[in-house]
């Protein structure tokens, strides 16, 4: 059974991130909104694999083979979330690099200054 509190927190963070994306016009704030959304996705991923009163998926004295399917936390979402965090880090780094370049070209971080194309 998944943890509803953690799942709801994750979904709430995703929505807050989306709201931030839609309402802010400063590039750094937009990047922060993306990070909040990404964190929400990661929390949601972990919540999907969570098992109430479960334990780590390591078969030993504390968890025997027959109990594993019901008591062990699903390891796959944990593996997925590690990959997703690494990818999220790379994407944020690229966005920040572009933010620096945009700032150097117009000396501002407001997207309103970049009028070459419609936003």
């Amino acid at each position, binding site marked *: 059974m998944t943890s509803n509190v953690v799942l709801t927190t994750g979904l709430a963070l995703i929505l807050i991130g989306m709201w931030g994306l839609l309402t802010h016009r400063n590039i750094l704030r937009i990047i922060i909104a993306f990070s909040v959304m990404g964190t929400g*996705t990661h929390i949601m991923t972990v919540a*999907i694999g969570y098992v109430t009163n479960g334990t780590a998926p390591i078969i030993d004295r504390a968890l025997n083979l027959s109990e594993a399917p019901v008591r062990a936390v699903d390891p796959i979402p944990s593996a997925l979330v590690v990959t997703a965090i690494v990818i999220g880090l790379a994407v944020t780094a690229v966005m920040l690099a572009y933010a620096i370049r*945009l700032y150097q070209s117009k000396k501002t971080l407001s997207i309103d200054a970049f009028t070459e194309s419609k936003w």
Partner: protein
Amino acid sequence: MVSSFLHPLNIFIVGLGGGFLIPLLSRLGKRWVAIAFILSIAAMTLISGFSFLILLQGGPPIDILTGGSTPPYSINLRLGLAEAVFAFGVNLVALFGSAYFVREKYGTMVLYLLVVMGIQGMVMTRDLFNLFVFLEIVSIATYGLLSLQETPAALSATFKYLMATILASTFFLIGTVLLYGATGVLNIDDLIAKSGLIVGPIGFTGLMFLLACLLLELKPFPANGWGLDVYETAHSGVAALISGGVSAGVFFALIKVLPLFKPQLDLIAALGATTFVFSNLLGLQQTKARRLLGYSSIGQMGLLTLAAALLEQSSADEAAFLVIAGLFVNHLFAKVGLFWLAGYLGKERLQDWSALVGPPAAIFVFGILLAALCGFPPFPGFWAKWQLVMNLAASQRYIWIVIVLFGSLLEAAYLFRWFGQILQSSGKTDRLSRSSVALLPIFAMALLLATSGCVAAFLMGLTLWTSIPLIAGLILYLLDRVSGRTKCFGVLALTLVGGI
């Protein structure tokens, strides 16, 4: 021995290995870097080409299982005939396109290699999360390639591209996780088999996020300004790679998961149709060449989406393969060739392309690329549209035929208006000063279009007789000095003979 060297898994080994090797070789000299870069792409092309030949001769699909176990305990990749068409097509284009990157810094070459490898991964993988990883590899490498242009317009266009694609990939991740929560599997084939479990709010939300990502990545109308700006401002080689290669990877991902969206197929087809018609309608008012090519590219992706959804509905697998492969190959070679031509010319306004009239070969190849894009015989786009229309007629879906024909008519209108404009304004602009050697990859695209058209005609059991309008056009062009009346009679006679 040979088959183990040419195993499809080696595409990834070569891609990643080349990526590691190029920075090391940069210490020896630029020539070594260029050699390693071209050899890596040539090896990937050879591997996918070899697999394509085997599959074309009726070989079974090649399955790659990681860790020696079967799904769902492993990630599997598959190279069937459809995958091989996409992978080989993209590799061929990347090989010819590498000519425009050999003088760039080694980092650019590494990124180019990673984009090409990532597209192969997107095409071949059968695991939803692995698809996300390859999507991100392609996206991040593309962001790097887009930094080749440093004008404020290019930077802001790239940032918009970043925002849209990151939003799309976040949607993909949310969709993947929710679908895993609903079914407990990540393998696409298992997901399709267990699609009965995708019910309730979690399953439905997961499906919708997945669909939203793939449709957003295909730049649907009207949410496609971010894609158009990149097509207009990026390095022409990068714009060509995004238009032909990255879009192909995303589209193939959509085809793979399409059986999950059976109840939404009408919606997907309607979105494809809207994009196809409105992109071509907006293409009519464009004055800048690369923006026009961007609209045409987005329109073609709309047509592919429309065709895939409608043919999935009618469960016409063989027809679906011919239509999708034909449309894809046609768009890939023609659009990539046109973007390279845009880079070769360096002219922004449509009428400035009259510089092409100088070398006769250049205007000839431009005409071929435009004719192919319009879906004229004998190019593969014609056979694909023919098959699509026949299939739609057989299932009495006439409204979709009208949409396909109307959108195609609009596309032909602006492309041939452009062609006419160039011919009329010839001599008013500067002549080309660049060497014709840079035109060679573009000639190769024209040649590939003609070859693939003949193969498509052969596969569909049709004769080349249907290419008579194009041959007639060429004859009329050669007989331009003859009086108008004689030419009119000639056309009428040919129409009569063709009709009989």
